[in-house]
């Protein structure tokens, strides 16, 4: 017997994601999902970002990693609240994991929730977590061909950050190639060049983040 079903396979994840978003909307918190390859500088960027937003802007970070609490330990002194989510073997965060994380936060007292996804350029893109904005990082040492190789991740980004620009003079990195690829993949998202090490471009990133609270 053949049964026609027509049902969203990720219904369970998507329903929890919508609930997460609703919960954060109610608390007037902006949730930012940071996605990139491992080692592109998500944690270092947050170490720069949280103090730069100002002492009165309370931030929480949910950090997704397969193992260890190292990232959470780095962010703990800076963020109002930090929660490490260990996915074990999971290569991406899911909405229920984020629900569990935000359930432990005092959302009403926060301005931003940063969700540092598991370093991976494929799997995280398929899962709505209930975030308001998706930010994709690309670091200079990863090379100038990443945008073309992982187009779907960059296509759905609300902002694209080129990190570690202090290495631009050291490595062969063709900025023209990145811009050219982005011109076919995503012309709507701002492209911000920055270095968490030197501080270059951080102002522009902070300004973009502040802008998201007014929407």
């Amino acid at each position, binding site marked *: 017997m053949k049964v026609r079903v*027509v049902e969203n396979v990720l219904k369970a994840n998507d329903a929890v994601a919508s609930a997460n978003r609703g919960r954060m909307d109610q608390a007037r918190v902006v949730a930012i999902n940071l996605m990139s390859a491992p080692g592109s500088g998500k944690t270092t960027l947050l170490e720069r970002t949280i103090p730069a937003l100002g002492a009165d802007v309370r931030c929480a970070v949910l950090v997704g990693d397969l193992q260890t609490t190292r990232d959470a330990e780095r962010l703990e002194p800076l963020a109002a609240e930090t929660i490490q989510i260990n996915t074990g073997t999971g290569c991406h965060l899911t909405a229920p994991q984020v629900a569990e994380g935000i359930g432990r936060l005092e959302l009403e007292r926060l301005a931003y929730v940063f969700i540092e996804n598991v370093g991976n350029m494929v799997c995280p893109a398929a899962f709505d977590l209930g975030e308001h904005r998706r930010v994709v990082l690309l670091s200079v040492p990863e090379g100038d061909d990443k945008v073309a190789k992982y187009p779907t991740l960059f296509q759905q980004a609300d902002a694209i950050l080129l990190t570690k620009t202090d290495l631009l003079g050291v490595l062969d990195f063709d900025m023209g190639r990145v811009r050219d690829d982005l011109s076919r993949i995503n012309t709507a998202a701002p492209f911000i060049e920055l270095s968490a090490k030197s501080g270059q471009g951080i102002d522009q990133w902070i300004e973009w983040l502040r802008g998201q609270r007014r929407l």
Partner: protein
Amino acid sequence: MHELSIAEGLIDRVSAAARGHCASRVTEVTVSVGVMRLVVPEALQIAFGAVAEGTMAEGAELQIVEQTAKAVCNRCGGAFEPDIGCYLCPSCGLADVRITAGNEIILESVVCDVPQEEAVR
């Protein structure tokens, strides 16, 4: 390997559908997968087989139907079918789009065995 999470969701939906029809066993499952989800069919097959073990869908055949992407330009409202690596609107030449299809993962149908006495009811 997000195919594993997808397979888990799929088995959940399949089991619910089969139970709803008083089935005893599922023999075939058809799922449509949007190209934007970057699902590797072989990986989904392996994950599905592993997750199905011990469920009604153990040993079921999985049919994967790929769905193309569709986009609407945020500037001019024009609809088009983008290539996965290029989202340029053919009218305005900008890549500022809303993806309207290609992200879905839909359980389309299941083929199942229904015991005789249940089928008569």
